[in-house]
């Protein structure tokens, strides 16, 4: 069953890649806002496109950050019971949660997100404000993209549970990859 382990690692690498993208976008956001404040205050110069870029970046960060967080155990649990469970117990809980909650939810929202972004593409939607950004479909398209990435991260979580339940690997339960 090395295949499942490889697949799980492949999905982890994919999520890490999302983490890199989001981090770079975050640093861009930081300087984007700083630049806008500086230009407005010091040079009386406002660019609506740069102002819109702020929310484009910020929303892409949180949307694509969610699948990264799934892979790295970053999402909050009410762990009154969970923290006392054995690894097998945790794996069963996560397996149940992924199959019943996470995967159907992300797939369904992703599905409707495709239509949402496609509408925008078909209309050639742009910003309604002077000098705003064109191609609104790109940022709208991040919604389905992010939700399908969440599905993929959810599959990674399922594999992790299966590997743990079969006794192949307890990666991801004994040592959550990132800690604060």
């Amino acid at each position, binding site marked *: 069953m090395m295949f499942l382990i490889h697949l799980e690692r492949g999905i982890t690498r994919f999520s890490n890649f999302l983490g890199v993208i989001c981090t770079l976008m975050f640093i861009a956001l930081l300087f984007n806002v700083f630049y806008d404040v500086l230009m407005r205050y010091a040079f009386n110069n406002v660019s609506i496109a740069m102002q819109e870029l702020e929310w484009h970046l*910020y*929303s892409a960060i*949180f949307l694509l950050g969610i699948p990264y967080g799934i892979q790295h155990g970053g*999402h909050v649990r*009410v762990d009154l019971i969970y*923290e006392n469970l054995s690894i097998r117990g945790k794996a069963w809980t996560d397996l149940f*949660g992924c199959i019943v909650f996470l995967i159907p*939810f992300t797939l369904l929202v992703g599905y409707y997100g495709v239509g949402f972004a496609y509408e925008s593409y078909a209309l050639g939607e742009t910003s309604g404000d002077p000098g705003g950004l064109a191609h609104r479909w790109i940022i709208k398209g991040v*919604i389905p993209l992010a939700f399908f990435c969440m599905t993929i991260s959810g599959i990674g979580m399922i594999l992790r549970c299966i590997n743990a339940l079969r006794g192949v690997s307890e990666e991801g339960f004994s040592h959550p990859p990132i800690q*604060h």
Partner: protein
Amino acid sequence: MIGIIMFFVALFLLLLGFPVAFTFGGVALIFGVLAEGFDMFAFMPFRIQSYMENTVLMAVPLFVFMGIVLQKTRLAEQLLEAMGKLFGSVRGGLAISTVLVGALLAASTGVVGASVVAMGLISLPVMLKYNYSKSLACGTICASGTLGQIIPPSIILIILGDVLGIPVGDLFQAAFFPGIILIGCYIVYILILTFLKPEMAPAMPQELDNETRTQQIIAALKAIIPPLALVLVVLGSIFTGIATPTESSALGGIGAIVLALIYRQFSWKMLYDSGLEAVKVTAMVFAILLGATAFSMVFSYTGGDEIVEEVLLNLPGEKWGFIILAMIAILVLGFFIDFVEIAFIIVPILAPVAELLGINMVWFAILIAMNLQTSFLTPPFGFSLFYLKGVAPSSVRTTDIYKGVTPFILIQVLVLASIMIFPAFYGMG
């Protein structure tokens, strides 16, 4: 009825321990699809877009980043330690410092998620390091993080101003004094608690090696000045109009990087790591918001709104009975409905009655805001609790947080009651 059943099912399923965000989403999906079919979820992209375009929430990643940089460079730790030392042998100094720093942060953002998470990053590790009781540490952080609701600028006051048709400036002004009183009560509570139970908050160890009190104060000031300067940059940029409150959070982030440079703690790796952590924490906060928006969508589209409306329309038509029951209703609803929903759905139902009864609307708005602040703290759905859990080390248990916030909830209720009974004292007679 579906909404109410869904609420209790979610409550039960949350206890399983699967991530909160997707438990909300999944439960919403099951109930939504059973009641109305799949197509209801075609609304989800629109709801998500409303968060995407809500630039006020941009303060979350930016303040989180500032908090992480201050934590990584140990500047926050030095600040809190120095402030704690200034309290000398008085116990609870770190907790009081946390309340004060939380109040400053509250004055620069109205987004609770941003300040709870930033405070959790900045001061939780320090309090734990000095053997504070976990529950006191968590309670203090959650409570001071929610101060952002009442201390201007505040999102809830802006929304209430809009809903009740009161100028926002008037509300900001009226909220200021109750906010100060609340801060004072937190501090008094910490002093009394640590006096009665010294083991919960040990005094900072005093270096005995010939350091005079004066030297100590000078050392403390040295440690306080840089992060304080940062806070002043953030607040100052708002007050001078250089930046909007949201933008000021980016100035805070850039300022933290500058401090790191000055203290020779900067590296590209540090910048990258801080960014990555900010992304992860931000994703945690927004995942909860997205799960909750699916939940409230199903709640309202399956007739939950109407049930709530019916209950509220049957409140008594006499001033004190109305006020007290309205406050209890908001408090209870705050357990499971988002404060924005309450402001938009419930307040408009109450407002005309309040007006009819000749109630001072500014006063009424402040009561509601104080009340909604409490809804962030109430287990099991209080968002502050989730946010803090998301950044706390794994040694901090959910029960520590629940236990810790309980006394602060009581304090808030007491302050709320005092505003109800003595409006004149708060300048709203």
